């Protein structure tokens, strides 16, 4: 890799204006005491940021179907989520680990701190891991998560969502996000979703219903494509 040679380091592109949320988002109350007041230190990427972890399926076994536990189907609407991970230049991101976690169909997380008065499902833990193939495609089977209340403001409810974690080629491409569902009326009211300033960037967090992914007599399919940062066009000299 050229990354190891200081003079040839190619960093990752800066985020497009408005495409990323600000950590100072007053409508999302938890940001109030958790956002830095200083501007982040500008520093061109080095080998520390351009390289990143590799995960082997041998050490991190894939769990592509989380819609059942020991042969028992979880309650709720079974769905298939598939998509492609590319970079900003449209190049596929192959063999990268994708982690997901989510609430069950009733809107309850299998988590001790979730006190929402909705039933737990013994056949749903809500966490999975897959790897993209050589062309950047991934796919998993799960249950459509329910909406759940949170205490951000009066009568606040999170839209249905699945949490996603991506790595990509470098530590700079690390991405944690949430996938939403089309037509959800709660999206218009959600301060986490609306923390993303650009309307187009928000839209791209919403999966689309996909008949090609849908399996007859089995499950509806959704398509969620994700774009990780691309490389800067030209190498920057130190």
């Amino acid at each position: 890799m050229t990354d190891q040679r200081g003079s040839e380091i190619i960093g990752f592109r800066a985020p497009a204006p408005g495409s990323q949320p600000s950590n100072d988002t007053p409508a999302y109350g938890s940001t109030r005491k958790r956002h830095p007041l200083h501007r982040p230190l500008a520093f061109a990427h080095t080998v520390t940021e351009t390289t990143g972890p590799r995960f082997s399926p041998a050490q991190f076994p894939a769990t592509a179907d989380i819609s059942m536990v020991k042969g028992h189907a979880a309650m709720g609407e079974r769905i298939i989520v598939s998509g492609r991970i590319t970079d900003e230049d449209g190049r596929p991101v192959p063999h990268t680990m994708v982690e997901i976690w989510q609430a069950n169909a009733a809107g309850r997380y299998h988590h001790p701190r979730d006190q929402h008065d909705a039933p737990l499902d013994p056949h749903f833990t809500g966490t999975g891991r897959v790897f993209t193939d050589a062309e950047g495609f991934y796919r998993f089977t799960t249950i459509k998560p329910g909406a759940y209340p949170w205490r951000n403001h009066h009568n606040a409810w999170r839209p249905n969502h699945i949490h996603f974690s991506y790595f990509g080629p470098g530590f700079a491409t690390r991405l944690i996000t949430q996938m939403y569902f089309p037509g959800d009326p709660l999206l218009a009211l959600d301060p986490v979703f609306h923390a993303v300033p650009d309307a187009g960037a928000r839209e791209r967090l919403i999966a689309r219903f996909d008949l090609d992914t849908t399996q007859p007599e089995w499950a509806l399919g959704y398509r969620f494509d994700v774009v990780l940062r691309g490389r800067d066009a030209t190498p920057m000299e130190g």
Partner: protein
Amino acid sequence: MSIATAAQTIGPYWHLLDDPALADLTRFGATGERIELVGTVRDGDGELVTDGCIELWQPSPAADDVFPGFGRCATDAHGRFRFITLKPGPVPGRGNTLQAPHLAINILARGILTRLYTRAYFEGEPLNAADPLLGLIEDPARRATLIARPVGLATWQMDIRLQGNDETVFIEV
């Protein structure tokens, strides 16, 4: 050309992913100078951050089958994280510069929409004086927020303050 997907908070329930084994980067048998990195995370009121996700990446020593180079650790009820890893060596910077030994750190939590990124350097390391990143921070107190100090034979401590007077220097990434 497309635009990179927006980040969203990791939220309070990310522990569904958590595997405490990931905090020990030597678990596959890597050998070298074993160290511990510990710290406490606090918010702008000085309150403990007890639901945080701290991630560590180091380009040195180079990752291989026995050394993943990556770790993840949940902050506990006392806001503490603890990694076991191998002491990094210097790595090249841009141009002909050399970067002092350091660890790359992500801080993710409820209330953080886009990961916060910083680094942990090591107190007493001669190369710190010429490190290209540390050299950009003029205020010695600010600079000190990136320097882990020894608190035991092989234990280094770097606390993280998300906001406030002793706010950690976060780095654009």
